[in-house]
């Protein structure tokens, strides 16, 4: 009932582990499949190793989660054995998330990562937490999106997915630019910029000061983005942002998503959140007599 085909690849269910959460090692990614997700996304990988920002890098409340990890990762050369490790432990599809500071470097990382057995590349052009180092995220500019999409596409041997930012007020235009430049799919959305202050010490809590907001507070923002993108492009969407329950995931699919990214839910409902969400989706479908997700995909669009 929940089997989902995404760019000719079959996922046992539409829930994929979102990039950045529990995705440092191949073993950790495989363990999340054991916990119920249909596929996984690695933490974003760059050309060189990065230790990331100082702590605190994350915090959460009942309503939102805030993080600025600073794209820590072991670099593409050390990421390859982790992806191989994932493959030795799991048969689920794996999306390799990549990022870089320039379009050319994006191409270089994409070429490197394709040497490992990945199913898709997700191009992270939308991290809100490394502005000091890399300037304004590429995800706010159609010109940058076109340039990066073209070069990554030309260097990749697997389909590519462009990950967009909810900070871009005209995200549907960004999705159109990606589609026109050859993107195979869109992930929407990354976290939205935010900040929290500890009033006793009178300081921002995160060492990076600003961070990316995820968790329940991001859901309606992400739904609006996915809804707008679905109405504007033909390529499939991984709907990500604030999904913590099966009902949230169903809403994401009704907005137009094919796959549903889940990350911060692990904070709210532990790592078993994936299996819980999948079970709740199945229960809702049974109650509403929905035979397949294709039946309800984009159902919230009236025309």
């Amino acid at each position, binding site marked *: 009932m929940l089997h989902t085909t995404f760019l000719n690849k079959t996922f046992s269910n539409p829930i994929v582990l979102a990039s950045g*959460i*529990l*995705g*440092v*090692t191949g*073993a*950790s*990614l*495989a*363990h*999340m499949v*054991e916990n119920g997700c249909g596929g996984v996304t690695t*933490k974003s990988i760059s050309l060189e*190793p*990065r*230790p*990331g920002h*100082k*702590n*605190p*890098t*994350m*915090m*959460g*409340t009942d309503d939102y989660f805030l993080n600025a*990890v600073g794209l*820590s*990762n*072991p*670099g593409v050369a*050390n990421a390859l054995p*982790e992806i191989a*490790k994932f493959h030795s*432990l799991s048969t689920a599809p794996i999306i390799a998330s990549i990022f870089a500071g320039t379009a050319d470097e994006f191409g270089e990382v994409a070429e490197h990562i394709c040497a490992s057995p990945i199913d898709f590349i997700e191009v992270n052009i939308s991290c809100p937490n490394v502005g000091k180092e890399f300037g304004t995220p590429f995800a706010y500019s159609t010109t940058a999106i076109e340039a990066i999409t073209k070069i990554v596409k030309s260097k990749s041997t697997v389909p590519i997915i462009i990950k967009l930012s909810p900070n871009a007020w005209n995200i549907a235009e960004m999705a159109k630019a990606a589609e026109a430049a050859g993107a195979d799919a869109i992930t929407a959305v990354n976290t939205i910029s935010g900040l*929290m202050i*500890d009033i*006793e*010490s009178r*300081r921002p*809590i995160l*060492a990076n000061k600003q961070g990316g907001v995820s968790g329940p507070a991001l859901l309606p923002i992400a739904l609006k983005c996915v809804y707008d993108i679905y109405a504007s492009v033909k390529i499939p969407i991984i709907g990500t942002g604030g999904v913590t329950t099966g009902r949230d995931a169903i809403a994401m699919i009704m907005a137009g998503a094919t796959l549903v990214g889940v990350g*911060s839910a*692990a*904070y709210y409902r*532990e*790592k078993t959140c994936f299996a819980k969400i999948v079970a709740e989706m199945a229960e809702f479908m049974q109650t509403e007599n929905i035979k397949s997700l294709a039946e309800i995909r984009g159902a919230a669009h009236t025309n």
Partner: protein
Amino acid sequence: MLPKTVKISKIIDENPSVKTFYFSHNLKSKPGQFVMLWLPDIDQKPFSISSDDGENFGLTVFKRGPLTEKLFTLKVGDRAGSTGPFGTCYSILPNRHYIMVAGGYGAAPLSFLSTKICELPGVTIDFIVGARSKDLLLFEDRLKLIPHLKIHATTDDGSAGRKGRVTDVLEELLKNATSKPLVVTCGPELMEKAVLDLCNKYDSDCELSIERQMKCGFGICGQCAVDDLGLCMCIDGPVVNRALANRIFELGKYHRDKAGNKINY
């Protein structure tokens, strides 16, 4: 999971590079658990809890980097941010013979455990504590006050207690054990691995505390996931039993840095 502001209520000098900081807060922690301690504008790192009496909790801290250097300049009444307690704890069981194996700062959580279990009926403790030299032996005075506890000190240079390794003493105790002991250990990973190997050899129950790079402390960042299980040591650890420890392939072989690169022991 927001940092809670806690005030320093007492500071004890343990040795020239180690202090115990007490914070007035009812942490509700168990021995083996840890907190993330935050000093704004400096850093936030995990610290094993060395005492918790319901009014104050203690952290025994070795001065080794920017965070601890700043912490060492603080005074009673100064404040820090604390999140936690996080992670698993050591078993607290009555009618049990505990053998504790502490290396260096590992004495901190095990002395906390000793204060909790010595109140239970039928508990006896052999506490093996090792250090490079006499001045680095921790908590001997504190441990002497605990009933039913026998201290076995070892030093690398023989400047206090017996010259040699903690595992030499452990093997003798395991060999001569009449009832089934519970071995609990905290210290450098290679020492813990040697303890685990002895417990496997003598088929003794065992609990280890595994230290890994941690960013969040609550099972989200994935930095402390161990091979090949993929379990996070902030959630399914730091304290693991013998069966689980035996399934952690990387134990005693490698750990990971902040980037996620493997660092061999």
